[in-house]
């Protein structure tokens, strides 16, 4: 597990199955592994395919889930290796919910999770999700 900030982490499949005590909301984004939800934690499975472009609808769903749980939980996003899909969801979350510019979000996450490899064309996908959210909400969705 790699902490991105005090309330947010990325992890791998083992981290998802046996999360550390203080991580109370687990988002599993590995399409290939639906796990038994860890007892006493908020849990969701939003499946992304490894090494492929993220589906904007799913990314939007993942961001919404994180946003919904951020007030009451410490969030951990997990995939198989904790390097690609989880990292990408966290970057998107930082951009779209916290208003961090894309390059700064990449910098922040790669500094905390060495070896992080965002999914292909993530920046474009984040842009699409921003448009999606703006259309739906009729308003603001993070900084450009």
């Amino acid at each position, binding site marked *: 597990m790699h902490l991105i900030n005090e309330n947010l982490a990325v992890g791998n499949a083992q981290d998802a199955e046996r999360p550390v005590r203080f991580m109370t909301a687990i988002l599993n984004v590995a399409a290939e592994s639906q796990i038994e939800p860890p007892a006493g934690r908020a849990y969701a499975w939003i499946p992304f395919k490894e*090494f492929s472009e993220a589906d904007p609808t799913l990314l939007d769903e993942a961001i919404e889930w994180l946003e919904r749980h951020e007030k009451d939980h410490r969030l951990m996003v997990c995939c198989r290796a904790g390097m*690609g899909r989880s990292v990408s969801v966290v970057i998107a979350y930082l951009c779209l919910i916290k208003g961090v510019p894309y390059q700064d979000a*990449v910098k922040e996450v*790669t*500094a905390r999770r*060495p*070896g992080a490899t965002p999914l292909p064309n993530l920046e474009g996908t984040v842009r699409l999700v921003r448009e999606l959210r703006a259309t739906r909400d009729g308003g603001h969705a993070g900084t450009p």
Partner: protein
Amino acid sequence: MPELPEAETIASQLRARLLGATITECRIGRADIVREGLATLPWYRGALLVSASRLGKSVVLEADRSGETRYLVFELGMTGLLFFTLLDPSYRKHTHLTLSLTGPVPALYYWNPRRFGRVYLLDGPGLARFATRRFGCDPLTVPWEDFRAVVARRRGRLKALLMQQQVIAGIGNIYANEILYRSRLHPYRVASRLQVRTVRRLYDAMRDVLSEAIADGGSSVRDFLAPDGTKGDYWKRHQVYNKAGLPCPAGCGRTIRRLTGERSSFYCPACQRE
């Protein structure tokens, strides 16, 4: 090309699929592919495969017969691979050793078009000699204090140290580049001048990169395939290897550069200062 993660991927597939099988026949395509122990080849007929492991970048099969143990050591070299089935009839040409087996996998093929690697047929003491002569510490199991001592003794360049098999066994050009980038160390840094905390960073990065690569089944750069024919995905996570001209993945704003020395080195001039 196969390095430690690829050799480990091969060994783990052999462990999963071949243990408990008996060798019914050993066929050699070219006698010179066996560097040592060719005369013992008939011994392996009827032997039971009891373990598969990795030594540096080589793969070792352990065989038992009548209370005696012998080993088949497959040096993979630049292009050596082991297959459960020949994926294409053209592969037959460069298949230099075939083991026919009982059990669910009927054969194991050693394929090596460029023949930089060889096969060794060894007994226990022979394997111990082979390992001592060729391999230094294993990067995944070397204790921190031993690794620190190895680095402190070396006055040469860091990347050359990582790739010197007699000192640290299993790391080649691809993973040396990735490990140095992960550690934020320039390939030309002098090993013995590193501070202890920097060596620790290198030690952690080395183990992380290799473990992550194993989890991805290694890197299918050029032609690496696992024995079942699957590709390794770690090449999709390479940060610097073969990425000259692309932006640094850490977002520092610089582009990855290539140094041409004895082997190509890829590095970020901002994140890995000399």
